[in-house]
């Protein structure tokens, strides 16, 4: 009886994480669609939907946090169950932050959609966004499908996105050299830089999710580890056990 209650409580948390993930992935798809469109116009209906989704994501974060505390207090989970709900909690925190960044990107684009700088860099933004979105999707899949390869793929791409971000900022500065004399140009530069940083932040959060997923699958805390150390330590442990 108690076991059933515990299993149900953990399943509810998993269901909520899945639903929260779906909302984030929907937001990211909309963002992707936006950059594939002709004119980068964020219509009011879409903005309202993004805002509404953002609120639901925030609510999920609070709900999952409360359910996590409840399961720990009432059922005292251990072993893979403990790792599972800790990972769910970490996922909820990181997903909520991704939601914040997506909302921020939509707002920035609404502000500067006609600016030449944005139009000039649309392709680069879209490229960076594609990688970040894939990272989010694969990091979530690594947890849901217990697939460590997706988590490692995500971790490997964190540096790729960081590198693109660094190069893009340099490129923007180079492109606008000598033109940052008026406040409008400065403002646009800051908006654009914030936009790239937000995408880079999304990739960071995906990396956090991948690390949490590895903790669930392997019981190993790989935060702040180098990629080479990580891969060799995971090799040492053999294949993921189906727990």
């Amino acid at each position, binding site marked *: 009886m108690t076991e059933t209650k515990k299993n149900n409580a953990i399943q509810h948390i998993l269901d909520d994480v899945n639903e929260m993930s779906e909302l984030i992935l929907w937001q990211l798809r909309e963002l992707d669609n936006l950059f594939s469109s002709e004119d980068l116009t964020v219509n009011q209906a879409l903005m309202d939907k993004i805002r509404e989704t953002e609120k639901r994501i925030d609510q999920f974060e609070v709900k999952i946090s409360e359910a996590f505390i409840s399961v720990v207090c009432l059922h*005292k989970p251990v072993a893979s169950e*403990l*790792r599972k709900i800790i990972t769910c909690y970490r996922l909820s925190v990181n997903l909520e932050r991704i939601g914040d960044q997506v909302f921020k990107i939509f707002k920035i684009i609404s502000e500067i959609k006609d600016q030449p700088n944005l139009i000039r860099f649309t392709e680069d933004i879209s490229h960076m966004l594609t990688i970040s979105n894939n990272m989010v999707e694969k990091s979530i899949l690594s947890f849901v499908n217990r697939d460590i390869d997706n988590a490692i793929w995500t971790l490997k791409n964190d540096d790729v996105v960081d590198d693109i971000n660094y190069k893009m900022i340099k490129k923007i500065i180079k492109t606008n050299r000598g033109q940052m004399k008026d406040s409008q140009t400065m403002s646009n530069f800051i908006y654009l830089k914030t936009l790239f940083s937000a995408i880079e932040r999304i990739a960071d959060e995906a990396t956090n999710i991948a690390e949490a997923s590895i903790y669930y699958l392997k019981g190993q805390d790989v935060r702040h580890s180098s990629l080479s150390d990580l891969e060799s330590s995971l090799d040492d442990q053999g294949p993921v*056990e189906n727990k």
Partner: protein
Amino acid sequence: MYDISDIKEKAGDQIDGTSGTSGSDKRTEGPATIRMETKDLTVKYGEVTGVRNISLPVYNQKATALIGPSGCGKSTFLRALNRMHDLTRNAVISGEVLLDGKNIYHPKVNPVVIRRKIGMVFQKPTPFPTMSIFDNVVAGLRLVGIRDKNLLNEVCERALRQAALWDEVKDRLSSAGGSISGGQQQRLSIARALAIDPEVILMDEPTSSLDPLSSSKIEELIHELKEKYAIVIVTHNMQQAARVSDYTAFFYLGELVEFGPTDQLFTNPVHQRTEEYLTGKFG
């Protein structure tokens, strides 16, 4: 001022006919030294095997928890650690149980000496109910012929303080052991075990008959005692095992399935059986 080594000297405290290193000396060696060790320990009751080929270290100044479903052999194993099966008619022991490297089942070893070195606290408090609190604590010392009143007074106070009971009973040491609460009686049982200055303390579900507050006091006590002693505790309460122990051994069907640092075993067990037991899939 009396030293506890006096007691051992008077009691002829020897294993294998040679003077053992005193417990006090051993305790300065460091936190991760092995105090006891079993090697291929098997206990049989007639044709029935209680535990099979158990090899397990018991570290000094650490608490080791034995967990597993009912009938898995954890209490059988615990009792083998201080030769309690000697009194069971059809019990047959094979393998070795080493205390400081010496086999306690060696024919020359006196089991009474072993039980003084390796104290036991049982599931239910076991004070002598009509005997005074004082007499309960020093009963073990009197059994080995110690009559010095000053020494008995000193040991009684020290043991009761170690068992976190002194402040509660110091004004009524002549009251009957059965007149205090269940939690206090269990701590009195622990004080009695400590009075003979053991090197290892075995605890067989020491809090299972106690209320949560008394249980919590015993757990705090275990934390304090493990600074000085090696402790082995059998418990059905997995949260208790996780709270009080440094190492945990999981037994199943008379075999040792997994042994390791408690935090590791409870968050990332290696064996599927351990995982299933911890998460309530069976047991």
